[in-house]
């Protein structure tokens, strides 16, 4: 396992071992070639990188802290728990790291219209935000079910000037929003830039979004070294499409002593079938432009998913995670809706931080993991987003009317 040259992935055609690739209709192949060229050119362009760094600092507020949760660590009586505070970014989640980068690319390519899919609405808000700032037209596709679950974010996007289209096809959640965004892109490919919100989709998206999110892991690694003089023992992040997780993991891939754990949504429980855990309970297939682990039936139809958190409610996962799972470099677990809610309350009460429900899955796992470790060991948890958008959902589950 230690012999894998992680930096060599993906290959030139976007493959992570058997995963990834570019499985799209012919109409998009030209646009993806154009995007790949631009991405390769500008990631090595000093002016572009300077502009990106400037925006991450002055607009997003990076670097954000690596916070030592001393009270929680003491209560868990095990490993020291550190939170990478992506919730403190402008717009409240890690998603903006990626939208800033892609919007700058869109501008370089002369595109005048931005589209995106969104589940929890965090990526939609982050996209609408950068579109507003750059004066670009913006259309956000969101499953109708999610527009209901995440009304505050729908309103935020509209305030920012975006058109929010409620998608009524299929299961009316994130996967259907992605289908609809792809249809828009195929139709308006000349003037439109599609900002995919996670490390999924056709090549180069999984690699490009990873590279924009890797700032999380680069900062966290340096901060942890500075604070403790050593590397952490484990990294924990929730996995929907997998962008906050890969952003944290990627800069540590060569650090063999660092264990990586991705936390999927077990929804009502893996046995119930009502979950969103393709890595834990799915199998490889092809959807949304790449080969990866999917939730599908015996005939290859994608099945409906369930999670209390809209941002994890997706039947696929980024192809690099599929590869990290098969190689054994990372391992993947799943926690239920109920466990996630426990994590949500525990962090809120113990540390005074209200996390997103997506993030609460990672926290729930840490509540189990930390006590199995020694106090001289440490865990970095990606605190991928803040929970303001989820207050309605939490209240509703607990029978409270706001």
């Amino acid at each position, binding site marked *: 396992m230690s012999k894998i040259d992680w930096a060599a992935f993906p290959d030139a055609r976007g493959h992570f071992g058997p995963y990834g690739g570019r499985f799209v209709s012919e109409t998009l192949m030209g646009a993806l070639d154009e995007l790949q060229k631009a991405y390769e050119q500008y990631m090595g362009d000093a002016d572009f990188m300077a502009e990106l760094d400037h925006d991450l600092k002055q607009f997003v507020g990076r670097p954000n802290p690596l916070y030592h949760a001393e009270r929680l660590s003491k209560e868990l009586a095990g490993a020291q728990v550190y939170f990478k505070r992506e919730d403190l970014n402008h717009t409240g989640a890690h998603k903006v790291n990626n939208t800033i980068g892609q919007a700058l690319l869109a501008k370089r390519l002369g595109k005048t219209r931005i589209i995106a899919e969104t589940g929890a609405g965090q990526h939609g808000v982050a996209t609408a935000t950068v579109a507003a700032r750059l004066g670009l037209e913006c259309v956000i596709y969101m499953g109708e079910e999610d527009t209901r679950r995440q009304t505050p974010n729908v309103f935020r996007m509209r305030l920012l000037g975006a058109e929010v289209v409620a998608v009524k096809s299929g299961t009316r959640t994130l996967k259907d929003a992605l289908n609809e965004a792809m249809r828009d892109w*195929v139709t308006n490919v000349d003037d439109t830039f599609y900002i995919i919100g996670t490390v999924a989709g056709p090549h180069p998206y999984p690699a490009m979004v990873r590279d924009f999110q890797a700032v999380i892991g680069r900062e966290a690694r340096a901060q942890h070294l500075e604070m403790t003089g050593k590397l952490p023992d484990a990294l924990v992040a929730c996995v929907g499409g997998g962008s906050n997780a890969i952003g944290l993991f990627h800069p540590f891939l060569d650090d063999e002593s660092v264990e990586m754990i991705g936390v999927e949504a077990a929804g009502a429980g893996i046995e119930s079938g009502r979950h969103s855990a393709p890595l834990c309970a799915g199998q490889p297939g092809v959807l949304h432009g790449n080969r990866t682990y999917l939730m599908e039936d015996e005939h290859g139809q994608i099945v409906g998913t369930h999670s209390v958190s809209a941002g994890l409610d997706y039947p696929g996962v980024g192809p690099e995670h599929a590869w990290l799972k098969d190689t054994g470099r990372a391992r993947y677990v799943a926690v239920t809706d109920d466990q996630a809610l426990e994590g949500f309350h525990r962090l809120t009460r113990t540390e005074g931080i209200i996390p997103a429900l997506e993030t609460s899955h990672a926290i729930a796992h840490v509540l189990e993991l930390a006590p199995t470790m020694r106090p001289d060991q440490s865990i970095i948890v990606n605190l991928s987003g803040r929970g303001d958008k989820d207050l309605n959902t939490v209240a509703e589950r607990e029978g409270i009317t706001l």
Partner: protein
Amino acid sequence: MTRIEQRFAKLRSENRAALVPYVTAGDPEPAATVPLMHALVKAGADLIELGVPFSDPMADGPVIQKACERALRYGTSLRDVLGMVAEFRKTDVETPVVLMGYLNPVERMGYQTFAEKAREAGLDGLLTVDLPPEECDDVAGLLENAQIAPIFLVAPTTSDERIAHVARAARGFIYYVSLKGVTGSQTLDTSALAARLEAIRQHTDLPLGVGFGIRDAATAGQVARVADAVVVGSAIVRLAEEFDGDPVGFAHAASEVVAGMRVEMDRVRASGVEASV
């Protein structure tokens, strides 16, 4: 010669263009599909494109999305669709049948199993919209052995370099997507089409089919002037929605559309314009 080659050779000798209706298998109900295929042949279809329903038809507009949803009400699977092809073959050994769909159901069945079953069923071609030639190395050999033609798309956005690449991998015919967009989009502009087809012909001797946006007999006729095959999908599938619950009425209405196109396409070709291949 394969069934597809025979069909195009015959049409060429008659100076006619192929009429290729698309229907989604299992729409509006599974029992309706085989009789519908026979009815379409009777009305003048030369080749049938049979859609394999998929839960996430990303390249399709609302009309075919709904057709997939109707077919999936009955759980119409790839296995079922191959069964329909076998049933059709019992009484029609000449009309080529091409499956059109998405990769995942084929991948789930397994490429080897698919190739064997498809051959047994008498299938002639496979078009998976989300499988570009770059990704088809695993599949190509298996299909070739089973004499199933891999059919590929060329789009308005396809560069010359890519056309050459597609042409090398393609068998049977090449499907030119006549507009940017999903199936069932706005009506097609036929004037630019001739030049575009000419450019593709620089790279291949395969017959060229044209589809997306052909919704009436007049457009079908104009396309038949310059293309070797005319593919009609949403204009037919639209009727399945109208006749949901009435498969006989649907077959009748679909046949009328096909027959009208047949007459116009043959009239255009007979009025002196030479086939361009």
